[in-house]
């Protein structure tokens, strides 16, 4: 289903588990109940990035343990009752479709490009027609006709601007002018591309000219119809796959998520869940084995504060790319009823607020 990563050949030769996937030893928790627990720290001589900074200082400095009240983490302060067993670990895949087109230019950018083109007119050598066209050939006649229509300006996209004339300083685009817009530039180039002179050197009448076929528009049919299930929409944006779990009032939009069993790692679970949820008809690639975001749901406790009514969740998100295919929810095991391919702004409207806030950091910000 997915392409192997760069290090897969190395991994295959030795072991199937990489160092990132190998789980660290459970770190000792510094709880107020066990004040001298940091004495056990030599067990975790290899400190992982996720390990507490306090543990690192204790091991490196080998000082006597600080008084138990001061350096406890906020996590152990807030939820005292639920230990690690109170949370369920989940893995989720954020499947993305990269943008297929470059984004639109901002008005400032297009104005800047026009200014640069006009500035360049003043600095370069003038255009020598005789260097490119043999005199009195059809191509030469064609170019001369078009040059006359552009009032002698050889460039096609800078408007009526003479770099060596009296008004050469007047090179900035005016407010409301469409000269600098990219679509206008393309229109002018396409109009210039159509032949004006036949092979015999006879000018072609306006009604007999063959217009050049226009390139495909930037907005597709799916954009016009507002079809959010198709992958050929919003071509200049990154799309994210979200699925709806449940029906009616209790329906929740989320990324495809599943529980991580003991014998699986996060990326394996994410890959399996995607296949089980959205079908095998997708050519996908999981970008990395390190989660790009995480989301924590606190457990719900009973009145007495001891018994857990609903277990908490820790969801780790991995990033995937789709190369080809389409999601198909028929026969999925997770009770999913619908899917959408959404941009970042549309995700904000659909996802729960805290959930979106957790995954927001991995998305493109423009």
């Amino acid at each position, binding site marked *: 289903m997915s392409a192997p990563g760069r290090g897969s050949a190395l991994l295959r030769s030795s072991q199937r588990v990489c160092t990132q996937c190998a789980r660290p030893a459970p770190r000792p928790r510094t709880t107020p109940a066990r004040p001298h627990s940091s004495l056990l720290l030599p067990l975790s001589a290899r400190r992982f990035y996720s390990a507490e900074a306090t543990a690192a200082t204790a091991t490196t400095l080998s000082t006597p343990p600080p008084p138990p009240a001061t350096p406890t983490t906020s996590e152990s302060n807030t939820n005292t009752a639920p230990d690690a067993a109170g949370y369920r670990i989940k893995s989720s895949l954020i499947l993305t479709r990269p943008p297929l087109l470059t984004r639109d230019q901002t008005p400032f950018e297009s104005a800047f490009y026009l200014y640069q083109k006009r500035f360049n007119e003043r*600095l*370069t050598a003038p255009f020598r027609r005789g260097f*490119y066209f043999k005199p009195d050939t059809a191509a030469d006649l064609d*170019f001369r006709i078009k040059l006359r229509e552009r009032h002698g300006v050889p*460039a096609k996209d800078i408007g009526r601007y003479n770099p060596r004339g009296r008004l050469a300083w007047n090179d900035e685009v005016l407010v409301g002018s469409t000269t600098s817009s990219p679509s206008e530039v393309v229109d002018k*180039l396409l109009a210039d591309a159509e032949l004006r002179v036949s092979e015999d050197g006879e000018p072609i009448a306006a009604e007999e000219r063959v217009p050049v076929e226009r*390139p*495909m528009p930037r907005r597709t049919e799916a954009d016009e119809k507002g079809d959010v299930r198709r992958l050929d929409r919003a071509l200049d944006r990154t799309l994210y796959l979200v699925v709806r779990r449940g029906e009616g009032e209790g329906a929740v939009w989320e990324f495809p998520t599943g529980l991580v069993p003991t014998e699986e790692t996060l990326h394996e679970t994410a890959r399996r869940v995607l296949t089980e949820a959205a079908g095998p008809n997708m050519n996908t690639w999981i970008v990395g084995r390190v989660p790009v975001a995480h989301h924590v749901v606190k457990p719900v406790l009973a009145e007495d504060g001891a018994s857990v009514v609903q277990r908490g969740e820790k969801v780790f998100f991995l990033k995937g790319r789709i190369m080809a295919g389409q999601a198909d929810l028929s026969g999925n095991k997770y009770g999913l009823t619908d899917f959408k391919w959404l941009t970042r702004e549309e995700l904000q409207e659909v996802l729960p607020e805290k959930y979106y806030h957790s995954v927001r950091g991995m998305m493109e910000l423009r």
Partner: protein
Amino acid sequence: MGKLPSTLLRRPSLAGSCLPTAPSSFSHAPLPSHQPPQCLSSQVRHATFVPRSRRPYQFTQLVQLSDGSTFTMRTTSPLALYKSDKDSRNHVLWQPTNKSLRNVEVDEAGKLAAFRERYGTSWDLDTPAAAKPEEAKQGAAAAAAAAPSGKDGEKEVKAEKGESKKPEAKAAAPAPAEAAAPEDPFDSLVDLISAYATDSKSMQGGLSAKDQAKKDKSGKKK
């Protein structure tokens, strides 16, 4: 490139006409520090004209790739639209899964296939070693069939039957062939290469266009 004007620079204090700058005067009597400069009146030009390098005139051109995607670029070509007919969008190197880009041999009359059937290909000259034992067995069987009445032939047949009954002996039989293979490293290497090449379909000889079309159809049905 414009010529740098460093050679033309003159320090006004060292201009010969302004000061008595003979080295001998230094040795005799050092100049008093409060001596006013004497050559303020004569101006010296430090800046020289550096001609700008001549760059050719450039147009904006619309480039359309073979899949229809377009972009603009700056070029010296006065053509407004450039349509590419071969680029990364329809080249098999970048599009390895596109079957229509494969190099399919057009052999409608079957002439090429007939030629190969008659004369073989250069790849048949060094066939892989795996194919040889089978030929040897076939040859032995043919010899046994040719001499049915001879006692030696019967013995051989019996011996073959005996071998076929014992799987251990059969398994042991190809082992010497394998052991004999790596004697000459060049031979084994050539076998390796030729075996690799003959495995690929393109080296076996092309299909005719009809057969290829049939094959494609049957592949689609699956």
